[in-house]
């Protein structure tokens, strides 16, 4: 018998999940794994098993339960820290989600298109006016989603450097507990002040509207924190990874340039192919449940290897191939179940606009370094690129 693997593992190829995850999927789809703190958990790697688990109320999202897997070591908690959205179970979760989900409907996201287009154009104006080569991470990939989420929430963009550094600290697995705590505390305090100001002078933004509906200030600060964090890194990483991928695949890029109608398909395939936030969908069993023929007992943690699942041969033919024609919408890069990413449709719109505009305005864009010299975020909760040097 092979020893149980220790998770999390790093990707060995930037375009593929860790080989061990794929081995587990074939040989041990419900596997016993060891975590860095020495505890054990289950790892699921088949798409159907994960969908089943994520829609079963006997698995909890409450990160404060003992045994919730992959919590940062020695996680210190603020005295007044209360769970928000991703950490809530029914019925609290449904209520909290319903209070805010109207801000993220398809209609609303489409209504934001002109403004997102303006933001992307402004960033590209600056890129085109600046030096060559340039790094697209700080000039396009990060500022676009940051500007959009700041505007949506009503956070002054002048404060975004502050958030960017703090959220990078929070997401990096090797950040010492004390520093992580300090970063979280700083964002929390900033949010509390901002919300107090908005309570006095409301603006036309999400936080003000939530206040108008009578939201509790502390809960709202938590929600603002979560949305800001979620909106800063994830989409940015998909922008840089997606740009790199398209530059390396002339056929896909040609298809995108020929017909903007295929862009949504390309975006969907990129989301599946990279699955940048796979561990976020971990859960803890609150009752004994059988999944894939294995009994998971109450109190045991479950980790979802969503990246492997998004290549599951049972769900995706030839899943290791990047194929813009496959129709990948049933991927679980945004999770599944009641907690499925609230901002997914905002992310889709941002990615579509960025790729369409970038390659229309800089048609001869190319990498400024050989692809194998790019440096990937192997040690972050959210996978991505540290920098993306390009020229034209």
């Amino acid at each position, binding site marked *: 018998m092979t020893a149980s693997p220790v998770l999390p593992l790093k990707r060995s190829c930037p375009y593929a999940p860790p080989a061990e995850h794929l081995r587990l999927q074939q040989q041990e789809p419900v596997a016993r794994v060891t975590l860095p703190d020495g505890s054990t958990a289950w790892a699921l790697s088949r798409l159907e098993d994960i969908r089943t688990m994520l829609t079963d109320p006997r698995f909890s999202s409450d990160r404060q339960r003992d045994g919730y897997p992959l919590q940062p070591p020695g996680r210190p908690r603020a005295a007044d820290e209360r769970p928000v959205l991703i950490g809530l179970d029914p019925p609290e979760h449904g209520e909290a989600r*319903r209070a805010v*989900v*109207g801000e993220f*409907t398809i209609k609303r996201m489409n209504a934001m298109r002109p403004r997102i287009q303006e933001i992307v154009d402004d960033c590209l104006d600056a890129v085109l006016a600046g030096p060559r080569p340039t790094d697209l991470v700080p000039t396009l990939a990060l500022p676009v989603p940051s500007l959009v989420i700041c505007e949506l929430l009503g956070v002054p963009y002048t404060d975004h450097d502050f958030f960017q550094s703090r959220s990078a600290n929070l997401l990096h697995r090797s950040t010492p507990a004390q520093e992580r705590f300090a970063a979280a505390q700083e964002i929390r305090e900033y949010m509390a002040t901002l919300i107090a100001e908005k309570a006095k002078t409301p603006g036309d933004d999400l936080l003000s509207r939530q206040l108008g509906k009578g939201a509790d200030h502390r809960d709202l600060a938590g929600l603002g924190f979560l949305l800001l964090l979620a909106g800063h890194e994830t989409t940015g990483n998909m922008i840089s990874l997606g740009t790199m991928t398209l530059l390396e695949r002339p056929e896909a890029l040609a298809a995108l340039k020929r017909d903007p109608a295929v862009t949504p398909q390309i975006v969907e395939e990129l989301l599946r192919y990279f699955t940048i936030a796979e561990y976020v969908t971990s859960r803890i069993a609150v009752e004994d449940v059988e999944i894939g023929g294995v009994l998971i007992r109450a109190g045991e943690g479950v980790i979802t290897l969503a990246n492997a699942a998004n290549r599951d041969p049972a769900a995706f033919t030839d899943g290791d191939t990047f194929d813009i024609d496959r129709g990948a919408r049933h991927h679980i890069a945004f999770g599944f*179940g*009641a907690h499925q990413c609230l901002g*997914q449709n905002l992310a889709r719109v941002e990615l579509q606009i960025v790729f369409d505009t970038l390659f229309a305005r800089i048609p001869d864009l190319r990498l400024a370094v050989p692809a194998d010299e790019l440096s990937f975020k192997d040690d972050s909760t959210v996978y991505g690129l540290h920098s993306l040097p390009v020229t034209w």
Partner: protein
Amino acid sequence: MRITADLERCVGAGQCVLTEPAVFDQNDDDGTVIVRRATADDDETIRRVREAVHLCPSQALTLTEPGPPR
């Protein structure tokens, strides 16, 4: 085929609207699904509604054969 939605389960992810906007819409306030047409008759619509049922993360949608006449 009859299309129904369980509003208690719906989490407003909008996957249904992205899949078949002719059948599904979202409530402006709480994002929950609005079923604009209660039935799907042509094959293409049925295919898309089936896809929406499969994609819906909270399993709020169902597509059923109409019951026997009473």
